[in-house]
């Protein structure tokens, strides 16, 4: 013990004293011995053969990449806020959030956002109502019941479905889905929320099915074995063991689907039209937030006008809705994990 202390003292007194002959120790027989250290430089340098330069530059480069996404986010929020302040100096916040009429291009203009919100919610919830059960059942079928040969076919079909451009879905809604619906519901309008919900629902089925299937697939096989070993049938194992274990992935898939449905523009514009209305009648034409933004962006609305600024405000609301969806999802997933 005494020896160690002695050495420490010598080292600390000298600061860095590598190779210093004063750094001596005494072996157990009391014979002094000099430690012979080779001369090695340990100082930082840019061009050391160990690649210090590469390491440092890579670090700065990666940091710059990460920073760019932060700056972009701030930039977008900044622009939105700037245009918003112009908008809200003319229209009161109260009128905007509680108004039930949205006629930005008429005079007198009306800027009540609720019709756009209701339109967006109708599409988002309606399409999820269609896509979530179907997507879940497809995921369960794929991972638990599907014969191997058919699995390849089904997965490719889903990928194909996910690859179809959204404008094609919109076109199909208008030219195929709505005419079919009109046979069942004669009162349906040419542009209507229902056909938009159906095609957006079909659009997000692949997302829900594949994310959920991944989650189900990652449930370890030994849990299934445990169930089979207890003489349980497959549907019992799927419903009571596998699905609960995969539920956070399922919730995540719903949120992804919701976000896509909220953000979907092209198909909805084509299928549901451009009539902002505070309604929950799926047979009527409505307008979503995204569809409104497209409508104004494509028109010849001059920059700086109130109509022009309104799309930034609507964009901001859209941003908040998607963010809110994601936060709720995180909360739900954490709660579920906590319970298990």
């Amino acid at each position: 013990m005494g020896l160690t202390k002695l050495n420490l003292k010598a080292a600390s007194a000298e600061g860095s004293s590598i190779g210093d002959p004063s750094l001596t120790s005494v072996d157990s027989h009391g014979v002094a011995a000099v430690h012979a250290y080779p001369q090695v430089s340990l100082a930082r340098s840019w061009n050391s053969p160990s690649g210090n330069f590469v390491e440092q530059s890579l670090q700065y480069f990666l940091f710059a990449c990460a920073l760019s996404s932060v700056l972009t986010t701030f930039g977008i929020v900044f622009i939105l806020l700037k245009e918003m302040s112009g908008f809200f100096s003319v229209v009161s916040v109260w009128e905007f959030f509680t108004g039930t009429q949205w006629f930005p291009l008429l005079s007198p203009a009306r800027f009540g956002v609720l019709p756009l919100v209701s339109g967006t919610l109708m599409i988002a919830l309606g399409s999820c109502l269609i896509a979530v059960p179907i997507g879940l059942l497809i995921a369960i079928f794929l991972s638990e019941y599907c014969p191997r040969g058919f699995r390849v076919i089904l997965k490719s079909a889903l990928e194909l479905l996910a690859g179809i451009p959204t404008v094609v879905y919109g076109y199909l809604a208008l030219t195929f889905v709505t005419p079919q619906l009109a046979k069942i519901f004669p009162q349906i309008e040419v542009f209507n929320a229902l056909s938009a919900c159906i095609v957006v629902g079909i659009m997000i089925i692949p997302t829900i099915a594949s994310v959920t299937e991944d989650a189900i697939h990652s449930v370890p096989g030994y849990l299934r074995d445990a169930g089979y070993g207890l003489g349980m049938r497959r549907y019992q194992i799927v419903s009571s063991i596998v699905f609960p274990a995969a539920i956070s992935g399922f919730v995540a898939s719903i949120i992804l689907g919701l976000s896509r449905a909220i953000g979907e523009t092209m198909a909805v514009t084509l299928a549901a039209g451009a009539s902002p209305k505070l309604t929950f009648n799926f047979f009527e034409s409505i307008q979503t937030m995204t569809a409104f933004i497209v409508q104004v962006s494509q028109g010849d609305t001059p920059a700086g006008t109130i109509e022009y600024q309104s799309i930034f405000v609507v964009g901001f609301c859209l941003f908040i809705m998607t963010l809110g969806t994601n936060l709720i999802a995180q909360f739900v997933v954490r709660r579920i994990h906590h319970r298990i």
Partner: protein
Amino acid sequence: MGLKSIISTSHLSVAYGDKVAVEDVSLEFESREVSALIGPSGCGKSTFLRALNRMNDFLDDVRTSGQVIFHGQNIYDSKIDPVLVRRRIGMVFQKPNPFPKSIYENVAWAVRKFGFKENEVRERVEVALKGAALWAEVKDRLKSSAFELSGGQQQRLCIARAMALGPEVILMDEPCSALDPIATAKIEDLIAELKEQFCIIVVTHNMQQAERISDRTVFFLNGKVIESEATSHIFNRPREELTKNYLTGRFG
């Protein structure tokens, strides 16, 4: 076929694709007896064990021939529902595999699915946990997650889970291989007690363990049974040269 034997195999062979893992095995297992299956790794012990309650059905490309007779019926007969077989022939796996549920639910779940009333379920859970020597350790925290238990406790929970269904045979595939020596000793004690009620067939790679817990030992090599004898007999005076070599550590 002995009258006492509860489960027996007759010329049982199992192959994965072209690879024969179990070859022409005819054995009998009796109630209230512990049988140990020993042999070097890869000799087909697990495959044989899983063949006894049709757990091999879930693997791809498995071919089984020969018979497994349980209650006088060949469980591979096309008229047999394998799910009903597994309810009477329980299984405990190598790695403890509790469900991501509470301790209580782990045992209660399958019992409830068999249509028992909730008060009967509660009773069965308690009996099973007592039977698996776990009750004293968990009775105050039945609602907490099974993952909070130690590995040894989890394995006893898995045994309780299997017992709660009232099987006649319990198959165990190296139930102690993931456990420390103290937890292993507890499982061994438990096996000695369970013997009073069940036919237990346990795979082990630990020869001392086979000697300690079993009444009968079956030595497998390359998918074939080399010797099947009373444990005291096989460890003291093995009939076959191969068995003697294995037991003295000359291979495997």
